[in-house]
């Protein structure tokens, strides 16, 4: 066989269909996590209907997309969630879905354990209630642990325990592993992105430089037993590459479909700048994936910009596009968490008032209580008349 280019180099030019994609089914959520990457909370009235979702699944089947990562919001609060899950797996589109666990009862756990084509990821961002609930809200630790127990009791093999790494939970990596092991689950660690509401808390929550180093060593030590969704490829610049593809797949091998059908380059880029189109357009998802100007652009060779002269560029590829964008750094420069420290220098030079740093352009956060004053309008010109008023004098104003 002849020598062929590295896969990474081929993937940079994009594929005819994504390998997998993320699909947020709803912006509705029972929780209000401080770092929610999709600023979820309230359902959007324009969300795709059951039939529209099935049409998307039909397209994914035709494109041979192997699996979808379903998320939200909390996807299981959609009343057609289980119907869509069965529809996808019956059409050979595997499903991995992320949930906070609220609907993982003993009964649904048995249903999930019986479906070979489904993976469940339970989100937990602290190995103790104190650390978890501070970010994900009161009671969320208990909800997640109950879900893990229900899945284990139902005989679900390899449920995933999904952790977003923060400054407060990196000291708990071994404890997370113990929780996963105790439930026959597999640990999955992903990177905190400054996306959605994450933009507001990233400065305080993102791991310190020492913690990144510790995380890197911990990941190397545990190898492929701990999943990362290729989240930490920027850490490969420490030396040895972590398992996985080690490239930014945005618009090349992955993308995001949001609840209203908008297609974005990746799950962490819900912003007008990275919107490629909508699945409701005539050509559907297929045409957005293959023809959108944005995706074509992302598939052109990148020159590395300010990072081109760095000897580690070939391993870290300049890091995460979303992390740069939402921290206000240039896209062709270093990642804000560049392990060589080049990102930190740039972060320090940003204006104190954060002017010029992009804000997420889509927000479904639940608002606090809206004050409403009850009472009658003072001195109405005409008193209101009910449609059912029977009096012949109703609405008549006497001089």
């Amino acid at each position: 066989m002849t020598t062929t280019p590295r896969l990474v180099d081929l993937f940079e030019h994009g594929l005819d269909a994504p390998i997998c994609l993320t699909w947020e089914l709803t912006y509705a959520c029972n929780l209000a996590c401080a770092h929610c990457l999709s600023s979820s909370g309230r359902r959007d009235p324009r969300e795709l209907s059951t039939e529209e979702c099935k049409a998307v699944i039909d397209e994914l089947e035709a494109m041979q997309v192997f699996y979808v990562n379903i998320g939200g919001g909390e996807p299981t609060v959609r009343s057609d969630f289980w119907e869509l899950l069965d529809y996808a797996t019956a059409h050979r589109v595997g499903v991995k879905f992320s949930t906070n666990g609220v609907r993982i009862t003993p009964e649904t756990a048995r249903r999930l354990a019986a479906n070979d084509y489904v993976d469940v990821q339970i989100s937990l961002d602290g190995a103790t209630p104190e650390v978890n609930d501070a970010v994900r809200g009161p009671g969320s630790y208990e909800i997640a642990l109950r879900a893990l127990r229900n899945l284990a009791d139902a005989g679900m093999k390899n449920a995933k325990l999904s952790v977003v790494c923060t400054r407060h939970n990196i000291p708990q990596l071994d404890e997370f592993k113990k929780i996963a092991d105790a439930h026959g689950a597999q640990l999955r660690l992903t990177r905190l992105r400054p996306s959605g509401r994450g933009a507001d808390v990233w400065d305080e929550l993102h791991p310190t430089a020492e913690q990144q180093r510790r995380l890197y060593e911990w990941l190397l030590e545990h190898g492929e037993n701990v999943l990362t969704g290729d989240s930490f490829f920027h850490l490969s610049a420490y030396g040895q590459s972590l398992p996985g593809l080690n490239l930014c797949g945005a618009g090349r091998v992955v993308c995001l479909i949001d609840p209203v059908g908008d297609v974005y380059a990746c799950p962490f880029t819900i912003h007008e700048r990275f919107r490629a189109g909508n699945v409701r357009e005539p050509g559907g998802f297929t045409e957005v994936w293959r023809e959108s100007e944005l995706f074509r652009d992302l598939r052109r060779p990148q020159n590395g910009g300010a990072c081109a002269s760095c000897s580690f560029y070939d391993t870290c590829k300049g890091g995460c596009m979303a992390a740069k964008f939402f921290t206000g750094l240039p896209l062709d420069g270093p990642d804000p968490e560049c392990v060589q420290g080049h990102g930190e220098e740039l972060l320090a030079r940003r204006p104190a008032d954060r002017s010029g740093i992009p804000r997420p352009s889509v927000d479904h956060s639940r608002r606090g209580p809206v004050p409403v004053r009850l009472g009658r309008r003072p001195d109405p010109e005409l008193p209101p008349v009910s449609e059912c008023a029977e009096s012949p004098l109703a609405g008549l104003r006497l001089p």
Partner: protein
Amino acid sequence: MPDIDLDRAWDLHPQVSVRPEPFGALLYHFGTRKLSFLKDRRLLAVLEGLADAPTARDACTAAGVPASDLAAYRAALSALARSSMLVERTS
């Protein structure tokens, strides 16, 4: 697991999905959740021919694999068998 016997019948695992790509193909195993890559379209042709060929060797010949390359193709097929992408066909 040693290298596969080219003179037996092989097939893709029933839970494996094959997606042709310009550079070769992507293979996904729905059971193990593993993704594999073929960087060679001729290897893809061999895989596609396995189901109807009496032996893996016949599938290689039908796909135009020169005799001098057989060892390399056997190694590639063996790697796929080790990751359960290929299974021996019994019927």
